[in-house]
């Protein structure tokens, strides 16, 4: 069922466009030195990211025209494909991997992160499975256990890459989706306990992860690779102050702050545009939450609701976790800011997610009155605010 003229959520589109503009601006200022040194072309990274954005928008335009129910029907296949990719990643020959770790699959120059695909595959699976007619959320074996198995498989494969950060994020997204779907709180507590146990086991056996965590506690001493990164990130943000030191003026990108245009691009934004810049960034993601949840509330069915919520949670949780890391609120997890950090898989998959949101929005728009009616009767002001935005 193709849609000729889909309804478009312009607020969502606008905030994502603004994020992409910020992204290109800061990828350029933060990467030009490195690009010049490494490739003799200061726009090297900029050009690549622009191509990815074009590709991502192509994906978005296609996906928003495909009925999300069709996607949900396909979700088991997508899930199996992503699971296969994760396994291939682990057993692939050395030349298919990037920089020693098995996070990226590099097949004849085309490089992507299977975990990003797996993340969205899981969200689709959750939306589909948790809205099956005979699922009873009150029963553990019905609701939580199958999901826990799916999540466990995916997380285990990702943690073997090793990618603790993404594992953690995928796990959190799953918990949130279970929560939204109405799982019993004590069921969730059990799942979280299992997750924590898994994390503890990982920490016990993987010294690299332990170091990361310890570096986090050692905080601002600048010791160790991670400690240094955090210290430099805080200096970037702190030195930026309220208004920043001016666009393009970052000194931290001069080899002080590692990864200044990928995971720590937020620090450079904070340095050059100050608190105003970082709060604006935060604001754009809050807009995305508002729009995403509004779309979820207006979705015609439970699948749509869960799917929209899952995608919104995935995007916003990544953004917040990233900022939590660069402000030294959370240990370094190595996850990007959606739409802003340099990198293709995350960008394309997030735009894929936005495409689904757009599609749900299109379907939901005809039924807009339905949830609105419920809200009208509600005493909750917050519901009105949420819906009204």
């Amino acid at each position: 069922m193709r849609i000729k003229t889909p309804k478009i959520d312009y607020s969502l589109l606008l905030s994502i466009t603004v994020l992409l503009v910020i992204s290109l601006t800061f990828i350029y200022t933060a990467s030009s030195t490195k690009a010049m040194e490494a490739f003799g072309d200061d726009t090297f990274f900029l050009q690549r990211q622009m191509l990815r954005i074009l590709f991502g928008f192509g994906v978005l335009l296609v996906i928003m025209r495909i009925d999300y129910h069709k996607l949900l029907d396909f979700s088991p296949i997508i899930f199996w494909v992503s699971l296969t990719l994760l396994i291939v990643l682990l057993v692939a020959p050395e030349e298919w991997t990037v920089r020693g770790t098995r996070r990226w699959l590099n097949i004849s120059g085309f490089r992507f992160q299977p975990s990003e695909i797996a993340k969205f595959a899981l969200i689709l699976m959750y939306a589909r499975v948790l809205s099956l007619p005979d699922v009873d959320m009150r029963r553990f074996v019905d609701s939580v256990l199958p999901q826990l198995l799916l999540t466990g498989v995916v997380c285990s494969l990702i943690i073997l890459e090793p990618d603790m950060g993404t594992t953690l994020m995928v796990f959190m997204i799953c918990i949130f989706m279970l929560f939204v779907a109405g799982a019993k709180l004590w069921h969730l507590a059990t799942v979280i306990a299992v997750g924590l146990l898994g994390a503890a086991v990982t920490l016990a056996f993987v010294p690299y992860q332990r170091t990361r965590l310890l570096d986090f506690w050692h905080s601002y001493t600048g010791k160790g690779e991670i400690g240094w990164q955090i210290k430099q990130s805080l200096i970037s943000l702190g030195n930026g102050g309220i208004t920043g030191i001016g666009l393009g003026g970052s000194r931290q990108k001069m080899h002080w702050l590692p990864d200044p245009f990928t995971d720590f691009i937020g620090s450079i934004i904070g340095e050059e545009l100050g608190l105003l810049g970082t709060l604006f960034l935060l604001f754009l993601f809050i807009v995305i939450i508002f729009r995403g949840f509004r779309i979820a509330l207006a979705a015609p069915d439970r699948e749509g609701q869960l799917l929209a919520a899952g995608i919104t949670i995935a995007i916003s949780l990544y953004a917040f976790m990233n900022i939590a890391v660069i402000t030294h609120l959370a240990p370094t997890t190595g996850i990007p800011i959606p739409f802003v950090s340099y990198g293709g898989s995350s960008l394309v998959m997030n735009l894929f997610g936005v495409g689904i949101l757009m599609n749900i929005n299109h379907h939901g728009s005809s039924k807009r009155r339905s949830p609105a009616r419920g809200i009208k009767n509600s005493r909750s002001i917050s519901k009105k605010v949420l819906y009204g935005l």
Partner: protein
Amino acid sequence: MALLNSKFRNDKKNGSIEPRLLATAFMLFTFAGIIALRLLYVQGIQNSKYSSDALNQYLIKIPKDGQRGLIYDRRMQNLVLNEACVSIGLDKSRMNDTPRVYARKLSRLLSRSETWIRRRIQKVSGDFVWLERRVDTEIGSKIATLKLQGIRIEKDTRRNYPHQEVASHILGFTDTDNRGIEGVEYYYNDIFTGQDGWNLIQRDGRGRAVPEHVIQANDPVDGKSVVLSIDLIFQTIATEELRVASRKFNAHSGSVIILEPNTGHVLAMANEPGYNPNFPRQYSIASRRNRAITDAFEPGSTFKIVPFAAMLESSKINMSEAVFCENGRFKFNGRTIRDSKSHGWLLPMDVLGVSSNIGTVKLTKALGSDALYNMGKKFGFGKRTGIQLSGESSGFFKDIPRWSSFSQASLSIGQETSVNSLQLALAYAAIANGGNLLQPRIVRGLLSENGSIEKIKSSREHAIPQRILSPETAAELKRYLVRVVEKGTGKAARLTNIKVAGKTGTAQVPRPDGNGYSNSEFMASFVGFFPADKPEYLIHVVLNTDRENQWGSQSAAPTFKRIAERIAVNLNNPGALLTQSASPKDKNVSSQHLVQIIVPDVRSRRFEIAEASLQDLGLQTVFEGEGEFVKNQFPVSGTKLSPGDEVKLERFSSKPSDGFNKMPKLVGLSLREALNKMAIANLEPMVYGNGKVVRQKPASGSAVKTGIRCVIECESPSVDIPYLSEVN
């Protein structure tokens, strides 16, 4: 419809999704709120802390030293250069390994022990530490290849003494911190030392300086340069001839002083053994001693001017009355005094002329101790001259109450006293200049910005020269000294065209244990000045020789002659030497000289030595003409050349040869200048008249055989031929 049904079915069983959605939204907003608060805290409240942390890590203060002042000779030739080198520093905050590893990697290149380097890294507080100052640039580039993070290789300068051993004792040298250790470098260290500055440089995360981000620069102030009274040409001549003489006469040490008797300016001060100030540590302290001022020795006969000056000033002695010299052996107060040759009756002037000890002792006895003592004091013996160098010895001049019965006799012939070379030279200068004891000078002053020379104020200097002899006494004594050279012991010092006044000295060297004199060591000396009628140069030669060469007349006098001849030739050839005097070098010399060689002045040096020194610098040499000396060089000194470039040397010989020469243009010159030119061309002059040259034969430019007699006719014809009268 089916979609709606499924939704309702789920709602029935699992309840509405909305409350959970809202709860999730609130959780996310709470998260966002916490992050916003955290951002507010980091960026708004802790802003200044992080800003200062940022500055601390961006900025690094790199010290930058002011360049040390230079030293010029009186013709503004560079005696020392500031050569480009590098200093190795370490920015400790950027180290990517332990000090131990750094020490191990750097140890060999820096020629320091690992422990030394490690301690240095650990001990010095602050981020920046110098590991080694002033090492070769090659060492710097080798260290750069080690890729040790935080290592900074900073451009620096160090002393380079281009003339090697020449004037080394005067100049001294500096240590690795560029502080003067000896000589003028030490004496005027404060003047040479500039004021250090620093650059506040922004660095990037790899410790590299970001060139466009020099935040603040405190420019260093360069030290002041000093102009010496030393003449590089004279100094070179003195150094070379002293070395030749030392070899020839088996002297293990010695010194030569050349000074201007009218001004007290020291033109040259050379010592043997010498040393190369570029590598001072390779020489013993004894080699680095400026013996001309640090060593006091028994002067012997050269001291006899003291009793004779006193006699001339005194009315007690009739200087036209002969004295009996006892035929070489004389018992005096229980000791035997000997002369080198036996003499009978001699006029006092001849007593000095043949240097009779017996005659001197007898005359002095008649004169009395007080007159002798007072004259010695007047000449300044026993007191430092106040030369602008450190380490001068005062010598030893006993007060009368401490004299023994034999002291008067000993003192009169230069024993029981000690002098340094410079003291004695100044005493003779007083005779040469008509009776004034001068304040010696080796430093003319500071070189000011506009190129003029400012005097350096010093408490040591007594401004007014002291008159110690009447002009008559001085003139008479000068005649005596001329006679020494013409007829007496100083014959070996005679110059062909120029009248010389001087005195030989032969002294025994007291044993180190204080018991009597050594049998194998002697001090042979000659001090003289010329031209006697209007003295311009005074040379004092002291050679510490063996028994065989003990006599001043044997070794020191010929050395004097060789030096005097070369000086005379050089001086009177202004066209070859003086016109090219270099202006003070600009301050950029040291940086430009990285890839360039500054041509040294090799004029007047021995050809082989000149050739070798140029080749040592990496230059090629070609020559023109023949002879043992270099007359001129092209290009001139101070020119910057690249390795392999050619320097042409014009040779000349001081000896008559069979070669042909061009007849110089003499018409219009003063007789004196004409004579000098002819001397250079090795032509024998036949002079008629006096004053300016009006005619010459052969004509200028024509080829003449060297040694040929040429006729010069001057303005005022006279039967008297000045040239001959001057000599005889």
